[in-house]
């Protein structure tokens, strides 16, 4: 197999009195992997994301990107390659700025922001109308609306589009459909899968929905007490069912 894009070696993350949230965790992410992440509350899923994104310092271990050690780089510098969609619809967009303005901001991820005019032209708006249409929730008709006035589903769809506007080397989806109603959630999950497969994105997706975890992605991991207790891909993943998964939650 080719070398991993991101690699975590013996990662330990602690809180308070040396309580290990991640415990000697080893994990390789390969280009094109769409990995669903399962685990009980407190298993370390969010900590894993925060560690990869650079929002939490590691106690020991190394994180590397294409073989380069990035353990001590800042969160902002990692956004050049890592994009993220949060669980809370309020977290991912600027509420007083319009949908189009948010997309423009996201378009500059990884680039220097200068005193050039932002360039919100008619062509740009037409392009954004096309882009947002694929999400199928009328976002394309609300490009000039402040995102604070959008529904939760629309905001999450926008957050997703923003995260993928500049193709990231790794996309972190932190239960991005959990705050939505079942129908909206399913719709966004569908659109997510569509985009990830079509654009060959490398993605990690935390979910509590076992059916989603089985249905989507080519690889599945289960975290328990800060360690990866199951890591399967392709046929092995296809052979899993909900009952089998639950046995790993008890371990």
């Amino acid at each position: 197999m080719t070398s991993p894009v991101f690699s975590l070696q013996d990662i330990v993350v602690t809180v308070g009195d040396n309580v290990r949230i991640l415990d000697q965790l080893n994990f390789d992410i390969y280009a094109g992997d769409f990995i669903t992440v399962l685990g009980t509350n407190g298993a370390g899923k969010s900590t894993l994301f925060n560690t990869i994104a650079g929002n939490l310092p590691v106690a020991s271990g190394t994180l590397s990107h294409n073989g380069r050690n990035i353990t001590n780089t800042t969160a902002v510098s990692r956004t050049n390659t890592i994009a993220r969609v949060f669980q809370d619809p309020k977290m991912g967009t600027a509420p007083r700025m319009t949908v189009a303005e948010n997309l423009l901001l996201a378009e500059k991820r990884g680039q220097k922001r200068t005193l050039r005019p932002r360039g919100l032209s008619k062509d740009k708006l037409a392009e954004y109308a096309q882009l947002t249409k694929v999400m199928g929730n009328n976002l394309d008709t609300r490009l000039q609306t402040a995102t604070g006035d959008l529904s939760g589903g629309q905001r999450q769809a926008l957050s997703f589009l923003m995260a993928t506007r500049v193709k990231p080397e790794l996309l972190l989806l932190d239960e991005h459909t959990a705050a939505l109603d079942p129908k909206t959630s399913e719709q966004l999950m569908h659109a997510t899968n569509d985009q990830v497969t079509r654009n060959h994105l490398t993605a990690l997706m935390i979910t509590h929905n076992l059916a989603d975890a089985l249905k989507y992605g080519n690889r599945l991991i289960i975290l328990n007490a800060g360690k990866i207790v199951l890591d399967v891909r392709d046929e092995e993943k296809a052979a899993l069912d909900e009952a089998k998964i639950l046995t790993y939650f008890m371990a």
Partner: protein
Amino acid sequence: MSIIVSSIGQGLLWAVLGVALFLTFRILDFPDMTVEGSFPLGAATAVTMIAHGVNPYLATLAAFVVGTLAGLTTGLLYTKGRIPILLAGILVMTASLSINLRIMGSANISLLNQKSIFSSAFLQHLPKYFDSVVVGFIIITMITLGLVFFLQTELGQAFIATGDNPTMAQSIGIKTDRMTIMGLMLSNGLIAFGGAVIAQNNGYADINMGIGIIVIALASIIIGEVAFGDLSLNERLVAVIVGSILYRLVLLAVLQLGFSTNDLNLISAVVLAVAMMLPRLRHALKLDHVIKKGVITHD
């Protein structure tokens, strides 16, 4: 008539403060107390330099630069030092009291018989008080146009996003600390610039001229918002300018009622408090309902 012209002139000159404070209070979304220090700092810098024979335009620009340094200090204390913004502002405000005394060498410097940006021949030929209207209008127009341009650039949009949602801003690679420091520097630079202009208009710089400044600047922001309601960002900047003029007219009306200039700080505070409570009062007293009832003939 001339006192109304004077009020409009003062409103235009003081509008610089409202627009500058808008950058931190409304866009970055925090109250920056530094302005009570950077305002007299700008006045002290400009007036002292002019008194030493420096060109008044140069002295006014120097005030801007010194103001950005005050903003930089607050910004570093807040972002790198992790001191809460209110306290960081108060620290710099307090420190600048001593610095201002060092700069001026005394508590008060007069510009009597000195040249200022108000002494050009053209301005001297205008009717009384029209000089402040002309200078105020030119200055606030240039600053507002500059800000309108800046806020629509990539950098300006990143600055707005920082105040709107720092988590999201960081997640798309915006260095929020840098944006915050930049906003504080720009805001306090403009406040100090305003201090320099107003000191030249008054004809002196005084060590105590910063007291109550934040309330005056806030009043123009809030009055503009209450008067005009929902506006786009660019329109809101203009609303602040109009708010600043309205505030001066309110002061004028109150002084006509027999209050003295000694009561100004109390009046400023009351005006601001009332303006801030107006949306709630309107709701509580059902003012809209009462007004409508007066127009509609039957219920």
